[in-house]
């Protein structure tokens, strides 16, 4: 049993496990010590110092986020010195902060704004020292506004410790300290793969996604356009967070109602695209095994991962499955088969995708994912963007009535739903591949070896005597480990699923800023419960999918399917290439 220790905070006694930090101990007493650089999923930085508290017997204040409690400790969080420190730090930040809250994308959910309001920081009594710094926006996904940065370093930590990319880092010293890319390059010129994790952890408006909500509203108001929308599997389990519902609440049907109220003409489901992806990807896998093509095959539905391979392992792009992502498959079908069925010209269909991801914004504008110059997906909105739209329309989300997706592309299986969790694509693919290869259903549909939050999961699947060695990976730091193995020639997997974000899309870079590992785990559980409750749990059983193949695409892997549902990748060149 853990050793317990006793201490007092503001004279209130509390008992905690040894190793507990003051910040958490205070939480037990329902005291919220202010904090800015602290993030529950990150190593302690103790950099902002706003959580400083007084401890009896110590000459200096201690950082509550970093200091472990000891037995008999006496902590005060509300003395004059602590108050002067907290207020002082906020005043110091504000003197170097672009104060235009009204035009800030984080207005209303900004940690700094909240703290200033809590500590009653109004007119600054210090000389304003902030300087104008150009905003970095030269890419489809990410906006970096250094003037709003509080230099807490959360983004750097996530970029390094979770993703292993280190595109963002500190530079300079003292008042020149800044968070930046090397040589202040545009993100597209750096190692950045636009996963967007930095935009989730940023406490202020310094790192945010490119906002395309206005573009969508313009399309909705355009009478010529039929605006259809698809929602990614992980949005429905994250959206509720922003409206006071418990973490991981399944709000699929309320979300559909909200989308109808916003004014979309048809509400469809990316899960349908996911089922199609499985049909194609399983076929591709079987083909690669049977015809001894490039192995192992890796998934390709995660755009951060695809960017990662193209940028960091350009010589390995042949391992990526050529099957398009669910979003892009959906959009292509929408602008071909669906357009034909409904008798709408493809250019009059405006395809919007609600994604938990900002790299999808990059994917949407890839030239290989367009027809005659018209992009398959016209606009990508993140979960955060959808929250914004819901608030803009003035919808009382928690009390909305429930509604169903439209047909035909709103129909999906449980296999499509679990796409949003790490291991989900693998599990869905196995359900189909196993059945197609062996003619028999998987012995257990719920294939647990690929579930869970572990960074790299491995398993061996028995396919009628043939053993398939699989790996499931999330976060790019772990992906790099696998890719290095592959590069060194000692990677004996057959099929690898990679998702760039921790926990998969449920922890994606476009999810609400309240996202933590704890919330992500709850969302994963919710996705599995959606699957469990689904009548159809294998992608190839989706009735509209069957119909689509029968009437339009012939069969999975057909030439037509290849033309419409597969893509290719381009290894990217670095600014400087040093051959040897």
């Amino acid at each position, binding site marked *: 049993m853990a050793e317990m220790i006793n201490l007092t905070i503001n004279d209130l006694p509390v008992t905690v496990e040894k190793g507990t930090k003051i910040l958490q101990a205070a939480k037990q007493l329902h005291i919220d010590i202010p904090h800015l650089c602290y993030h529950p999923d990150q190593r302690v930085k103790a950099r902002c110092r706003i959580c400083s508290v007084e401890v009896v017997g110590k000459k200096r204040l201690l950082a509550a986020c970093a200091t472990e409690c000891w037995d008999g400790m006496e902590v005060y969080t509300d003395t004059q010195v602590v108050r002067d420190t907290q207020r002082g730090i906020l005043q110091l930040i504000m003197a170097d902060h672009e104060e235009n809250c009204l035009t800030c994308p984080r207005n209303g959910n900004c940690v700094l704004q909240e703290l200033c309001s809590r500590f009653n920081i109004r007119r600054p009594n210090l000389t304003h020292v902030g300087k104008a710094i150009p905003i970095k926006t030269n890419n489809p996904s990410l906006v970096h506004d250094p003037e709003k940065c509080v230099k807490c370093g959360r983004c750097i930590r996530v970029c390094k410790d979770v993703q292993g990319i*280190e*595109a*963002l*880092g*500190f*530079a*300079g*010293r003292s008042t*020149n300290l800044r968070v*930046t*890319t*090397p*040589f202040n390059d545009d993100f597209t010129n*750096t*190692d950045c793969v636009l996963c967007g994790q930095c935009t989730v952890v940023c406490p202020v408006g310094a790192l945010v996604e490119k906002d395309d909500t206005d573009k969508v509203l313009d399309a909705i108001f355009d009478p010529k356009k039929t605006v259809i929308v698809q929602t990614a599997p992980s949005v429905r389990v994250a959206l509720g967070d922003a409206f006071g519902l418990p973490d991981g609440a399944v709000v699929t049907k309320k979300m559909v109602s909200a989308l109808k109220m916003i004014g979309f003409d048809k509400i469809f489901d990316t899960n349908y695209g996911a089922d199609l992806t499985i049909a194609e990807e399983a076929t591709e896998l079987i083909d690669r095994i049977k015809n001894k093509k490039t192995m192992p095959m890796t998934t390709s539905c995660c755009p951060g991962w695809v960017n990662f391979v193209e940028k960091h392992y350009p010589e390995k792009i042949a391992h990526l499955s050529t099957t398009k992502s669910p979003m892009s498959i959906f959009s292509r079908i929408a602008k071909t088969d669906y357009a034909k069925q409904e008798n709408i010209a493809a250019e009059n269909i405006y395809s919007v995708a609600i994604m938990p991801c900002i790299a999808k914004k990059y994917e949407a504008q890839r030239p290989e994912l367009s027809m005659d110059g018209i992009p398959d997906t016209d606009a990508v909105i993140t979960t955060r963007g959808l929250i914004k739209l819901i608030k803009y329309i003035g919808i009382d989300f928690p009390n909305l009535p429930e509604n169903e997706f439209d047909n035909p592309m709103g129909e999906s299986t449980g296999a499509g739903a679990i796409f949003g969790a790490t291991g989900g694509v693998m599990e869905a693919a196995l359900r189909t591949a196993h059945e197609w290869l062996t003619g028999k259903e998987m012995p257990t549909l719920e294939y647990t070896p690929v579930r869970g939050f572990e960074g790299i999961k491995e398993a061996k699947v028995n396919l009628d005597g043939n053993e398939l060695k699989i790996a499931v990976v999330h976060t790019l730091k772990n992906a790099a480990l696998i890719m290095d193995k592959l590069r060194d020639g000692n990677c004996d997997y057959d099929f690898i699923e990679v998702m760039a974000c921790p926990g998969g899309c449920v922890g994606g870079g476009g999810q609400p800023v309240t996202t933590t590992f704890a919330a992500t785990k709850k969302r994963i559980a919710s996705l599995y419960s959606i699957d469990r409750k689904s009548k159809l749990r294998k992608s190839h059983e989706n009735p509209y999918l069957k119909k689509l193949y029968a009437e339009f695409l012939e069969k999975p892997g057909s030439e037509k399917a290849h033309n419409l549902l597969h893509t290719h990748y381009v290894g990217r060149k*670095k*600014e*400087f290439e*040093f051959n040897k």
Partner: protein
Amino acid sequence: MIEDSSKFELTEELKASIDKILVEHYHDFTQIVGILLDVQSKIEQHYIPKIVACYVAEKLPVKLSVIYDCMTFYDALSDKPRGRYPIEICDSIACKVNNNEFLLKTLKELLGIDFGTVTYDGRFTIEKVSCFGACDRAPAVKINGIVYGPLKTKAQMRGLLEQFV
């Protein structure tokens, strides 16, 4: 003006000497600061151009952001080109109270340059630095690692500069 750093050419010769420096440091990324100091000393303008930083990052290997952070954090490393003989003027309190202002003014006059500009022949730039531990020779300057001081008269300074002709 100081030459544009984007035009810097990474010659095969420089590549070879960087490779040698990396070997001397056992390709040990923890020695990055020492490596960068050595590399910088091989470059006439005493700075680390972007292309060189990328080369070191790839060959060491280490993340470019680490190199950029070090380059901008440490005073002894520069991301901007300097003169062949960068004159570092100590700006510590010991030097300040010994009238380093006169030293600075006179140097500017003699060279006809200011901070951020280089002499017409690319030879000198001037910059202020924090204390370099030569307070017994205040007011002092340092040129390519060697301390000169105390420099109290114009004649002394002219004599110093003439050494680098």
